[in-house]
């Protein structure tokens, strides 16, 4: 077996090789003086690093996180409503709508008493225009039919 690679030695010391690979490396280290020396150095470093312990006991953040998450959740629920329905805006929106309806109703009532409010009704004209009389027609719509009939006339090409 070749010498143990640097990364494999690190993972061997950390105990993160597969069981079969771990055994192979162990056997090699036992037999190889060079790798045995490297292994001892790696173990010393590993153990020295283990002296740096971090005590998190005084840093419980669970309550703070729950409080922030609950606040974020309620904000999110509020954001889901249409803007106008959010707390605080609804009474304002309703009072504005009521004011508009009242103003329209009052304006409508007052309109009956204004000078320009009622226009005299004009009866439709009963006089037949002279150009229709000349053609012997009663209504202007008959004029359109007359033109169309003229276009469809089979003798049109002979004229």
């Amino acid at each position, binding site marked *: 077996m070749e010498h143990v690679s640097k*990364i494999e030695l690190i993972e061997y010391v950390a105990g993160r090789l597969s069981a079969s690979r771990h055994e192979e490396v162990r056997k090699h280290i036992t037999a190889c003086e060079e790798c045995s020396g490297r292994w001892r150095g790696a173990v010393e*470093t590993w153990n020295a*690093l283990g*002296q740096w312990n971090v005590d998190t006991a005084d840093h419980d953040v669970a309550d703070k996180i729950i409080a*922030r998450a609950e606040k974020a*959740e309620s904000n999110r629920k509020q954001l889901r409503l249409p803007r106008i329905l959010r707390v605080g805006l609804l009474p304002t929106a309703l009072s504005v709508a009521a004011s508009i309806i009242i103003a329209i109703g009052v304006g409508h009532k007052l309109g009956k008493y204004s000078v320009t409010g009622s226009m005299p009704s004009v009866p439709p004209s009963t006089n037949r225009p002279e150009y229709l009389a000349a053609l012997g027609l009663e209504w202007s719509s008959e004029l359109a039919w007359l033109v169309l009939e003229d276009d469809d006339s089979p003798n049109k090409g002979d004229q």
Partner: protein
Amino acid sequence: MARLAEGDIAALGDIVRKHQDRVLSLSYRVLGDWHRAEDVAQETFLRVHRAAKHYKPKAKFTTWLYRIVVNLCFDEQRKRAKAGASLENAGSEVLAESDYNAAEKKELAELVRASVNELPERQRLAVILHRYDGLSHGEISEVTGWTKSAVESLLVRAYANLRGKLEKMRDFLE
């Protein structure tokens, strides 16, 4: 996560209590500052909460969680770099405070911490995830988005650097 996706806030509490130690210790080791570490921990779990409805377990939950922590730590470091502060400064502040508290008892631990903090940023993160959070180099690759070979190289250099630093430290202590 399924309970959390249904809006059960108590489920978030369970997740936080189960994982906050590893999130806090990782962010503290990377940032060297409890205040920032707590901020990162809070933001991490709030992101978990926000993402719960769309969460699809493609990888291990802890791998996903570490990815969030690492990204937030990167953001914090960028902010700090913009503000002109360095981790070395933050570290020495912590060291100075703790020196007065329990100098002799914690001397070795503080020197180890200082040695780790002196590593280049990527080496430091790789070694923290490997030594203290129990991730293999393959898992570190998943969490950070770096290639496996890059992680291997970072770990090899980081441990070699640390060995040199800790040997000097041992001579100093003896």
